[in-house]
């Protein structure tokens, strides 16, 4: 039972990371109708920069903090170089051009850092000591750092909601998503708005990467897995809906983590051990996609259809 609780917490925190990446992806798609495969690259760069700067400065937190402006700058640069020229193009061109960006940036990462996973400093408490764990049921210690990620998952969505629903900038973003021509006619520089939204999304993904760096291996290609799961999240949640992305991200995170942990054991009840391990592993990796297919079968536009279909 406590095993299930631990896995549920792990799943929640994976869901939070997925949400941070998916939110930017969904925002960018909702506002400028751009499907950006290279969003996972921002996540990867966030992790790499946080790891390297962490080792440099001697503090994980400093590295993670410095990764934010770097992710922002990379986002701005990529927007200026490539994405700006894709807003008016069809989805096919967008997919291909951003795919080219992935190939380039991943290869550059390999050239700069090598193919081996990076060393990441362990996050410490503010006093400098080890972060340790928090006791959950029955004397079981759960790492505090992982709980902090779940905390981020509570704060960031609230902040995002406030930004989008309650501020002037958020109002422009919402208006720009549905009536870009009208917003431009009212004297708003829509290009600058696009750039800001894009850079903000890039920063969120970089933040997710920095947070993930002590938990997942920091290696080339780490962004691809997350990116594709984020697509599943967006498809399940409904394109352009932040609320949908949040719920779907937690759902996908939980399903994936618990499935991988529990299915091989659960199948052992009906199959012999080696067959159970193999089918369990195969089924667990398919679980998220099967769920997606099931949800789409009943709700083709996702759970929370956004402003744009």
């Amino acid at each position, binding site marked *: 039972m406590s095993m299930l609780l631990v896995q549920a917490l792990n799943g929640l925190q994976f869901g939070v990371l997925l949400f941070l990446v998916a939110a930017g992806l969904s925002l960018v798609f909702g506002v400028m109708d751009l499907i950006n495969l290279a969003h996972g690259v921002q996540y990867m760069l966030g992790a790499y920069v946080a790891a390297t700067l962490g080792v440099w400065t001697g503090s994980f937190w400093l590295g993670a903090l410095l990764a934010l402006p770097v992710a922002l700058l990379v986002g701005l640069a990529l927007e200026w170089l490539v994405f700006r020229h894709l807003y008016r193009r069809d989805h096919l061109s967008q*997919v291909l051009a951003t795919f080219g960006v992935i190939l380039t940036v991943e290869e550059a990462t390999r050239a700069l850092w090598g193919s081996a996973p990076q060393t990441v400093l362990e996050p410490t408490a503010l006093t400098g000591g080890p972060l340790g764990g928090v006791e959950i049921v029955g004397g079981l210690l759960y790492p505090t750092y992982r709980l902090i990620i779940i905390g981020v998952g509570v704060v960031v969505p609230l902040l995002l909601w406030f930004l989008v629903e309650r501020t002037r900038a958020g109002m422009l973003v919402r208006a720009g998503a549905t009536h870009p021509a009208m917003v431009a006619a009212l004297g708003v520089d829509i290009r600058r708005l696009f750039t800001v939204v894009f850079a903000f999304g890039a920063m969120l993904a970089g933040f997710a990467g920095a947070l993930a760096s002590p938990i997942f291996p920091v290696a080339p290609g780490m962004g691809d897995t997350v990116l594709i799961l984020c697509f599943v999240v967006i498809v399940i949640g409904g394109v352009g809906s932040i609320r949908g992305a949040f719920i779907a991200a937690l759902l996908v995170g939980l399903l994936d983590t618990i499935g991988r942990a529990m299915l091989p054991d659960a199948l052992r009840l009906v199959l012999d051990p080696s067959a159970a391990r193999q089918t369990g592993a195969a089924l667990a990796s398919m679980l998220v996609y099967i769920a997606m297919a099931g949800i789409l079968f009943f709700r083709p536009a996702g759970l929370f259809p956004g402003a744009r279909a």
Partner: protein
Amino acid sequence: MIGQLRTHSLPLAALLALAAAPFLGFGDGFALSLLARAMILGMAAVSLSLLIGGAGLVSLGHAAMMGVGAYTVVAFDAAGVSEGVIVFPAAIAAAALFALVTGAVSLRTSGVHFIMITLAFGQMAFFTASSFSSLGGDDGYTLYARTEWLGARILDNRLTFHFLCLALLALVWLGCSRLLASRFGRVLRAAKENPQRVLAVGFQPYPYRLVAYTLAGAVSGLAGALLANASEFVSPALLSWTRSGELMFMVILGGVGSLSGAILGALAIVLLEEWLSHLLVYWRLVFGPLLVLSVLFLHGGLIGVIPRTRAALRLLPWTRRNANA
């Protein structure tokens, strides 16, 4: 007929060059296996072009269909069956079935959703292939021998294999273009342009699209089975989503809306990759930006190069004077 020849002059020249290649100094094992790979990927690219250019279905999971075909060959090999009369139809059927099932779900959506879902299903196939530990898992599986035909080992001869691939590529191209020109293809193309009107005329686009998707899957399954034979090795990398992206690049580079462009695209990309990876360690640092630049600036693809240069030539001052005279 002359017009047909003219629009297809570039791909026809490419096919002729492929037929002549073994006798023009490209007959060694390395060159032949490279060309075979290009032709096989060309088949998959043509089938993807049928979906993207013909039906407007931007699938980013096409490598999975090829993977299903290749893994069927591997599964039969592991079970000790290497008879082509059984293996090839099974590979084609398996890929078609996979396309039918995933297509039935994916085609309920459109636009960006469709791109994301096909990508997700492709990734699902990738992870499934990686988890088959009896078929090598992540490490891949080396075939004991190439597939036989009625007990004869005809695929072992590289030259025979070369011409088999060439013939099949030509056949796939011919078949797909006949399909697009037929009444069936007209509904597909009309549904791409304007689904509402197609509905109003009394056609449901869904079954037409599903059939096209399944057929494209079957062709890719054939390509996958051939690819397994060409490299005598299959690994999950064959199904990776970067492979799907590459196939899509072949279609776009050749020119969307022209099936034969996909053949040119496949040839160009396979050869370019081979050349670059010999030249540089981090060759994708050149390949990636080339991809981006070709999307941003090369409208209409390689197939449009001839008419475009002709149009550009017409604008030159001395040719214009001729035209006026």
